[in-house]
C-alpha cells in the first residue's frame, strides 16, 4: 500500500505557510459556522422560551369571544369559573401547571408622569409565575394583598420608583368606565427581557378582579405542559363548548414561522461561508496541481494510475480538512461555550410580545449541530477537492513532462 498520507503530509509541508493559511481559512470558516449555528439556536431558544414562558404559555383557555388585543374585562369576553377549570386541567398528567390570569389595560401615574401598562392579575402561589419571581428589590405579591403591586425593573427606572413608593393605577373596568386607586410598590421584578418588563404590572388575581369589576372571572387559563409537543393532544382532550383552547403554535404564528425559516436561513448562511472557505482550499490545491505538473507526469510515467493520483490529492485535502475543521471546531466550541455563559448583550430590541427576546442571547451549541457542521465542512471540502484532483489525474504524461522542460 502506498502511504498517501505520508506523501500528502510532505507535499503540504513544501509550502508550509500556504498550507497553514488555507487550513486557517477552513478553521475560521468552521468556527464561524459553529458560532452562527450556536447563536441562532440560542436566539430561537430564547425567543421560544421567553415568549412561551412569559407570555403565551403552551395552552390558553379563553372565552369564545375573547379578543386578546382589546384587553377588555367586559364579562362577555371572560371565562367563567376559572379556578375550577384550572383545577380540572391541572389534574391531567401531562400538565405542569394551569392558572387563571386576568388582563386589563391601565395607566400608572406617579407625580406628573404616566405610562400605559398591561395589568395582569395572577395567582401568586402558582408556579406558572416563577419567571416573575426574580426581584431586584422588595418582595413578591401575596394572594390577599389589597394594596400591593409588582412592577418591572425598566418601569421602576423610568418612573424612579422604589419599593414602598406609592403610585396611582388607573384601570378600564368591565362596565366600560375607569377606576383608580393608589398602590404600594411591593417588589420590582426582572425577567431579563426588557421588552416585556417595561409594560407589565402584576396584582393578585382577587384584587385585579375586584378593582376592574371582573367578578370572579378571568381572561385566560394559562397552561404549561411538561412537553409542549403535547399541546394539540391536550387541547383536544380539554375542549369544551364553554370556551376555546388555543395552542402555543396558534398563539405564536409569527414565532413559529420565524423558527421554521431560521433553519433555511441558516443553511443559506452556511453555504455562503463554506463556499468562501472551500474556494480557498480548492485554490490551494489547484496551485499545487499546476506547480507539480511535471511531478504528476513522472508518477504517471512510472505507472501511477488516475485514481491513485486522485487519491494523492484527496489525501492532501483530507489533511487540510482534518486540521482546519478540528481547529475550527475547537475555536467555535470555545466561543460558543464562552458566550453561552456570558451571553451577548443586545438590550431591548423593541420587539413586541409576539416574539420576546431576552436582553442577552446565550449561544447554545448542540451536539447535533456541531456534528452536522463538522461532517458538512469535511464532506464539502473533499467534494470540492475532487475537481483539482481529477484535473491532475487527467493530465497526459507527455504533456505533463513537457510543460516544465
Amino acid at each position, binding site marked *: *500500500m*502506498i502511504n498517501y498520507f505520508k*506523501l500528502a503530509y*510532505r*507535499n503540504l*509541508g*513544501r509550502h508550509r505557510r500556504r498550507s497553514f493559511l488555507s487550513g486557517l481559512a477552513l478553521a475560521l470558516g468552521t468556527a464561524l459556522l459553529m458560532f452562527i449555528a450556536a447563536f441562532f439556536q440560542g436566539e430561537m431558544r430564547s425567543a421560544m422560551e421567553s415568549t412561551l414562558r412569559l407570555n403565551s404559555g403552551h395552552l390558553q383557555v379563553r372565552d369564545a369571544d375573547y379578543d386578546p388585543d382589546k384587553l377588555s374585562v367586559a364579562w362577555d369576553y371572560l371565562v367563567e369559573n376559572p379556578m375550577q377549570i384550572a383545577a380540572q386541567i391541572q389534574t391531567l398528567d401531562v400538565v405542569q401547571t394551569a392558572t387563571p390570569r386576568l388582563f386589563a389595560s391601565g395607566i400608572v401615574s406617579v407625580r406628573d408622569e404616566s405610562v400605559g401598562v398591561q395589568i395582569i392579575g395572577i395567582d401568586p402561589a402558582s408556579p406558572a409565575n416563577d419567571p416573575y419571581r426574580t426581584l431586584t428589590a422588595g418582595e413578591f405579591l401575596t394572594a390577599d394583598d389589597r394594596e400591593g403591586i409588582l412592577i418591572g425593573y425598566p418601569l421602576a427606572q423610568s418612573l424612579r420608583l422604589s419599593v414602598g413608593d406609592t403610585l396611582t393605577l388607573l384601570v378600564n373596568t368591565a362596565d366600560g368606565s375607569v377606576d383608580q386607586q393608589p398602590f404600594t410598590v411591593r417588589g420590582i421584578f426582572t425577567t431579563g427581557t426588557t421588552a416585556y418588563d417595561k409594560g407589565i404590572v402584576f396584582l393578585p388575581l382577587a384584587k385585579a378582579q375586584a378593582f376592574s369589576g371582573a367578578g370572579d372571572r378571568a381572561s385566560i387559563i394559562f397552561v404549561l405542559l411538561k412537553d409542549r409537543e403535547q399541546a394539540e393532544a391536550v387541547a383536544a382532550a380539554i375542549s369544551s363548548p364553554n370556551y376555546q383552547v388555543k395552542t402555543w403554535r396558534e398563539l405564536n404564528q409569527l414565532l413559529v414561522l420565524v423558527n421554521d425559516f431560521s433553519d433555511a436561513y441558516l443553511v443559506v448562511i452556511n453555504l455562503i461561508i463554506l463556499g468562501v472557505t472551500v474556494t480557498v482550499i480548492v485554490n490551494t490545491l489547484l496551485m499545487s496541481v499546476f506547480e507539480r505538473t*511535471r*511531478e504528476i507526469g*513522472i*508518477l*504517471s*510515467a*512510472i*505507472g*501511477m*494510475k*488516475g*485514481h*491513485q493520483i486522485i487519491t494523492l490529492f484527496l489525501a492532501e485535502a483530507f489533511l487540510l480538512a482534518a486540521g482546519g475543521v478540528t481547529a475550527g471546531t475547537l475555536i467555535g466550541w470555545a466561543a460558543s461555550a464562552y458566550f453561552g455563559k456570558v451571553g451577548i448583550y443586545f438590550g431591548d430590541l423593541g420587539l413586541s410580545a409576539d416574539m420576546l427576546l431576552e436582553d442577552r442571547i446565550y449561544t447554545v451549541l448542540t451536539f447535533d449541530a456541531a456534528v452536522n457542521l463538522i461532517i458538512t465542512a469535511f464532506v464539502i471540502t473533499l467534494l470540492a477537492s475532487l475537481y483539482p484532483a481529477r484535473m491532475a489525474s*487527467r493530465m*497526459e*504524461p*507527455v504533456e505533463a*513532462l513537457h510543460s*516544465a*522542460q
Partner: protein
Amino acid sequence: MEVAKLTDVTRIYKVGQVETRALNGINLTIESGEFTSLVGPSGSGKTTLLQLIGCLDQPTSGSVVINGKETTGLNRNQRADLRKGTIGFVFQFFALIPTLTAYENVEMPLLLNGKSAAERRRRVMELLEAVGMADRANNRPDQLSGGQQQRVAVARALATNPKLILADEPTANLDTENGEQVMEIMKKLNRETGTTFVFATHDPRVIKYANRVVTLQDGVIVKDAPGNGKS
C-alpha cells in the same frame, strides 16, 4: 525476442493551424538486450519516438507493439498499467519526486506494483548499491548532486526489473565524469541483467557505449547501424 516493434508509425503534432510531422513512417524493432542510441539533429523526432515506445504518447497512425502487446487504442490507465513493470524511464532533467528520499523514490514503482515490504527493502538497497548511492539512501533530491540524482533515477527505472529502459538525454545535464559514471552503470546493468536500453542523445559519450545507433532526420530513420559499444 522483440521488446518493441513499431510499424509505419507517424506522429503529427497540431498546434493551432500548424501541423508538425514529428515522425513519418517509422519502422523499428528493438530486440531484447540491445543498448541502442537514437541520434539526430535537434527536432528530428528522438524524444517523440521514445515517448511512443514508452506508451507515454500515442501515434497518429501506425502500430506500436510492446512486449508482444498492441498498444494503440489503450486508454490512459491501461497504458499506465503496461508501463509499470515493463518500461522504466530516465529523463534528461533529474526527475525525482522532491518530497521523497532517494530510497523512497526508488521504492515508488515497487509500491505501485504491490511488492511486499521485505521485497521492496531488499530490492531498493540492491539497486542503490548498484548505482553507488546506498550511503545516500535517506537524502532528499535537493541534497544530492545532479549526477547523484541521475543515478537514483536509473535505480528507480530499474526497480521493477523492466524489460526496457528508455532514457532521454540522460547525460545532458551532467559533467563528463558524472556522465561517464551513469553510462558505465547502465552498461553494466545491460550486460549483467540483459535489460534493454534505448537512449535519445546528442552526446558522443553516450553514443560510444551503444551497440546500435539509429539516426533520425526530419522524422525519418536515415541510418541504422551497429555501434562501437562492446556488448
